[in-house]
């Protein structure tokens, strides 16, 4: 297992590198000047030049990149241009809330999608199935940020069921959970539709399999046949695509964080982009890429665990 992990990690390093090159070139070659943003439009051009030199922004692009890269290799992600704090510190502060809603959302979506998908498949083409399919279609079509705003309007402002914005504390605290619930739910619910359709498709194929018939012939109850024998096999293709969907959670979180004023990394990213804060953006994108890679690895391991045929390749 460890060898497997190690091999995958090695393969991913070049990917990471290319990601950083891509992002960095994007930043360096785009219009707009962070110093200008900082000092305002009417700033004294000499002052601007001086600060640029101080921040090392006057060096050519590839030099800046290598300086940055070597710093990263030593664990130093630089200083935010706007806030003059260490990028690593800023990210560390905000990454926890982001991970909180992301994990919460993943958990919710799987928790809900499983029974919905299974029931849809077992009762395929019945009114239950059609109803659930209809709902899935709606949820997928609805813009995430709009649902977020609507939910905020109705549930938080109008009816006061949920607090309006911000974070109440760590996830294991009651206050924390209260604030987490709505953004986490909204983040997860769109994926429920997608994942449950996946499970339904997988189950439909599997329920016709010979080994399901064999399981029944042994006298096992229908519940065991469906949830143990069939589901496990249906999960195999599901997990693969689920792995592709996982980064989407991080994507959507950026928007959800903005709507709910959730103090996460996504929100900080939008802010940093607007202010042309190169170093901060570089750092955040790197961390996100790492997160995605970590997620993919977890999914790969899960996949190997579910399908024993993989292990023996």
């Amino acid at each position, binding site marked *: 297992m460890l060898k497997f992990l190690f091999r995958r990690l090695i393969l991913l390093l070049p990917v990471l590198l290319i990601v950083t090159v891509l992002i960095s070139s994007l930043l360096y070659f785009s219009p707009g000047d962070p110093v200008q943003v900082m000092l305002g439009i009417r700033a004294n051009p000499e002052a601007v030049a001086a600060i640029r030199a101080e921040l090392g922004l006057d060096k050519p692009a590839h030099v800046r990149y290598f300086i940055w890269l070597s710093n990263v290799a030593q664990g130093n992600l630089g200083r935010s241009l706007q806030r003059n704090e260490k990028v690593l510190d800023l990210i560390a502060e905000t990454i926890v809330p982001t991970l909180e809603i992301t994990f919460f959302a993943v958990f919710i979506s799987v928790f809900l999608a499983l029974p919905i998908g299974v029931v849809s498949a077992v009762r395929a083409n019945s009114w239950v199935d059609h109803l659930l399919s209809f709902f899935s279609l709606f949820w997928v079509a609805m813009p995430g940020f709009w649902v977020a705003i609507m939910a905020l309007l109705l549930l938080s402002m109008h009816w006061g069921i949920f607090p309006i914005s911000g974070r109440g504390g760590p996830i294991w605290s009651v206050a924390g959970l209260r604030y987490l619930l709505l953004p986490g739910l909204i983040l997860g619910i769109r994926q429920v539709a997608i994942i449950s359709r996946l499970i339904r498709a997988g189950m439909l194929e599997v329920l016709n*399999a*010979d*080994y399901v*018939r*064999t*399981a*029944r*012939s*042994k*006298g*096992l*109850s*229908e519940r065991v046949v469906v949830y143990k*024998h069939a589901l*496990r*096999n249906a999960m*195999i293709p599901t997990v693969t695509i689920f792995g592709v969907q996982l980064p989407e959670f991080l994507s959507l979180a950026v928007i959800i964080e903005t709507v709910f004023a959730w103090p996460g990394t996504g929100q900080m990213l939008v802010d940093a982009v607007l202010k042309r804060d190169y170093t901060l953006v570089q750092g955040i994108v790197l961390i996100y890429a790492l997160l995605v890679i970590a997620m993919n690895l977890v999914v790969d391991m899960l996949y190997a665990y*579910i*399908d*024993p*045929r993989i292990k*023996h390749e």
Partner: protein
Amino acid sequence: MAHLLEIDDLRVRFRTEFGAIKAVDGVSLALKLGQTLGLVGESGCGKSVTALSIMGLLGPSGQISGGDIWYHRGNDRIRLSGLHPRGKAIRAIRGNEVAMIFQEPMTSLNPVFTVGHQIMESLILHQKLSRPQARRRAVELLQKVGIPWPDKRVDQYPHQLSGGMRQRVMIAMALACHPALLIADEPTTALDVTVQAQVLELMLQLQSELGMAILMITHNLGIIAGMAQDVAVMYLGRVVERGPVREIFHRPWHPYTRGLIDSVPPLTGPVRLKPIPGSVPELRSLPAGCRFRPRCDQALGVCAEMEPVLKEVAPDHLAACWRC
């Protein structure tokens, strides 16, 4: 000896997009402990459906629309056909007193569980064994069916075994709880010829050891000759001839049976294939009168008007043909 299983005028109906189809239309069979009944016929004649109805495995679109299936346990007579297919009663019998093995060992075993686990399931369910106990039994069973190094194999997955071994595993799985009846639906059709012989011999050996009845479904007459005491020939959902194997083979009465036997090329002498002319008609467009008439070279006038019924043509030997 009383019969273990009696099928009495069984009728099975399927709902399809073309309407209802009578896959089985009046089949009567009987089995005794320790004996093998062969069920022979071409694809689509209803032999598998008959087997599945015994186990209640017809699926949501199939239904027993007439007749009964009686199962004798000691002094009790249980009406299998009346049990709900997903109910507790039939599940207590499935895998426990009546077991089934299927044609495709590769797809009939669940790829994500070890073979040991799959064998252990019925042991834990029906015999209430603990996990370590069940595991020991599983290893014993694997050894009994002739799998070398059973203590290693028990933790392996189906894809790590060969076709013949997988079928042995299926047999082990089926026989785990010492069923009184083993239904074998074309168990060797997907295997190599040499492996076929091994598996069949294993089944015979286990039968003489454990004394169960076997319902052997196949289209291969050679297997019947080697394994069964009695045979029933099916065509288009009905039994057209029934009796002891030797009798049927030496004195086949029904033209279809005769055709089947004749179409097996002889091992010696000049080879001249004699197929049965024509092809099996669709179940939804059955001819009037005797179902075999369009392909029969000895049809009489009455054959076009009325369906023949099974009549005794010799002791214990029944055939459904107007020529008797």
